[in-house]
């Protein structure tokens, strides 16, 4: 079922006081100006998910907002996935043809798109190539959602030739910034508090969903929601849970799945299931990407939430859990450290033992859980809701059009 798209007014009850009025005032700076977002796909992936919410809010704020994608009859080249992987540090050496395919594809798509706007924002790798077809008017922004903190140099050198033709770059974390002759801005991603994944649920709804998923409520739940790959460290979470269980009655719920085209992930998934087969308190749930209400219910039912990644993009699962007033134990990776304020909203840890120690402490101390959980929700309210991201996008437009 398609979710209803909320209006700006709907966020009044969840955003910080005065935010809706402030956003309306801020939008006056860019009212009637045209912004064009270009993503690789309108249907698939995190960028499409963000734009589905953000573009209607920009329009409601008075901006002439449009969204185009590179979807078309011709499939996105395989080169795109390899280029993505290389920019995120994959060491596979890319052949020259990969870059040629990238250039040819974006050149062909550019002719099919109307690229005239006051501000054009191209998201991630493929649309970046459109900058070669930029008209003389308008400011162009490269919005990078990828972790390019340690890119394969060859891939970055090729992409950099395009990026320097933009007027500004925007990243999700400071560590992603590169040496560039253009201004580089920081805009954190956000969660939508009114989406199925984050909206309030009644106790009856939570109970019904957990019953359907076969997760009992008789013991405190430790939870991690993350796909099964080694960077999310599900086996480390299981080891931590076993250390916790020596002292506390509890259960562990691991929600995730392996990408079918990732043999290492499939193998890891099998290891996780093997571990679970000997322990009735260890639940492994492979849910579809559309099971948003299920994830919501599990996060709300959890006592402590893990995000014990060793490598992470931004890790918005942390903000989702904190929004539900849950203390989070996170690995020291990517955007987790930007979200978890140590001993205020949760803990960042560097080891299995550290994760277990903090989980034991939290299970033993309801007042501590309550303090961290309340602070976490407030931290998300101020910093990681879509209303903040909308304001940043408006401020970026206003700054570039000054």
């Amino acid at each position, binding site marked *: 079922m398609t979710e209803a798209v909320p209006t700006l007014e709907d966020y009044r009850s969840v955003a*910080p*006081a*005065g*935010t809706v*009025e*402030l956003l309306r*005032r*801020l939008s006056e*700076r860019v009212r009637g100006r045209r912004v064009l977002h270009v993503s690789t796909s309108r249907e698939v992936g995190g960028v499409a998910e963000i734009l589905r919410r953000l573009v209607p809010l920009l329009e409601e704020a008075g901006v002439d907002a449009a969204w185009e994608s590179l979807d078309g009859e011709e499939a996105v080249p395989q080169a795109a996935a390899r280029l993505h992987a290389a920019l995120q540090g994959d060491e596979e050496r890319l052949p020259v043809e990969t870059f040629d395919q990238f250039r040819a594809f974006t050149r062909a798509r550019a002719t099919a798109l109307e690229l005239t706007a006051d501000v054009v924002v191209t998201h991630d790798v493929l649309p970046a190539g459109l900058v070669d077809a930029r008209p003389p008017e308008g400011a162009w922004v490269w919005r990078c959602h990828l972790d390019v903190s340690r890119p394969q140099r060859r891939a970055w050198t090729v992409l950099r030739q395009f990026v320097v033709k933009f007027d500004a770059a925007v*990243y999700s974390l*400071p*560590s992603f*910034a*590169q*040496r*560039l002759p253009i*201004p*580089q*801005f*920081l*805009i954190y991603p956000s969660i939508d508090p009114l989406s199925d994944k984050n909206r309030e649920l009644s106790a009856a709804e939570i109970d019904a969903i957990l019953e359907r998923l076969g997760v009992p409520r008789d013991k405190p739940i430790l939870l991690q929601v993350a796909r099964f790959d080694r960077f999310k460290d599900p086996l480390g979470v299981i080891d931590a849970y076993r250390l916790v269980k020596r002292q506390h009655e509890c259960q562990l719920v691991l929600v995730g799945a392996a990408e079918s085209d990732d043999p290492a992930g499939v193998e890891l998934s099998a290891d996780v299931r093997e571990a679970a087969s000997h322990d009735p308190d260890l639940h492994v749930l492979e849910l579809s990407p559309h099971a948003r209400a299920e994830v919501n219910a599990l996060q709300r039912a959890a006592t402590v939430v893990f995000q014990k990644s060793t490598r992470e993009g931004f890790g918005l699962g942390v903000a989702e859990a904190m929004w539900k007033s849950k203390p989070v134990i996170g690995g*020291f990776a990517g955007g987790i*450290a930007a979200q978890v*304020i*140590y*001993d*205020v*909203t949760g803990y960042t840890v*560097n080891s299995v033992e550290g994760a277990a120690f903090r989980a034991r402490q939290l299970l033993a101390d309801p007042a501590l859980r309550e303090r961290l959980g309340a*602070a976490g929700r*407030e*931290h998300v*309210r*101020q*910093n990681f809701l879509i209303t903040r991201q909308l*304001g*940043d996008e*408006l*401020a*970026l437009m*206003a*700054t570039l059009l000054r």
Partner: protein
Amino acid sequence: MTERTARTPFHFHSCWELREMLGRRAFDERELLEHLEEVPLDSIYFHTYSFCLRQRGLPGVYPNDFATWAAIQVRDRVLGEKLGIIDPQDFPDLESLRAEVVSLIDDHLAQLRSVPRIMFGFGEPFYFMQSRALEIPTGVKVRTLREFRNALATLDTGTVYLHLVEARGRKGRRRGDFAAWVDEQLGLRDLAARMGRLNPYQQSLEDIRHRLVALADEALAGA
């Protein structure tokens, strides 16, 4: 007395901060010091004065980015404590503040045999940033203390930041705009003094907003 009407109304403004990355990073305290000597003053401002804007609802463990990084990422609690005591409001300008931070780190390093640095994989480097703050008129103007109190209770915390921190930090005013207005326009000197003692580096902006409203309520009740 508190029903006095100001000749000049108070116009509430707020702000939105867009963060800009300078592409500079420090992995150890010596590198931090070297970058500190070179970065634009706006970056010094970002990591000290406007730190509270990013901790609106919650006061951080330390009151500026330099102290937070030293204590949490480098795990040098001694330097974290030394930097944590710095109150930007004690300095006449940003160059003086920069000089204090630099000399404090330099003195600290002089007492050590090696330069503390983040452990690879267990700490984040320090990323130098600056901000572009857009000042936004809220359209709200008030002439009495009661109107002032009611408006402040509903406006966003960026309003508190702009009139309390930016007024002194960037605009060079001797005191915050709220204290100046209630003193000069409403003649409430005692209330102005109490407002002037609120410190955004010891409390969150949300706490300060509540405190300002409470102070106004007390003044209204005593009128």
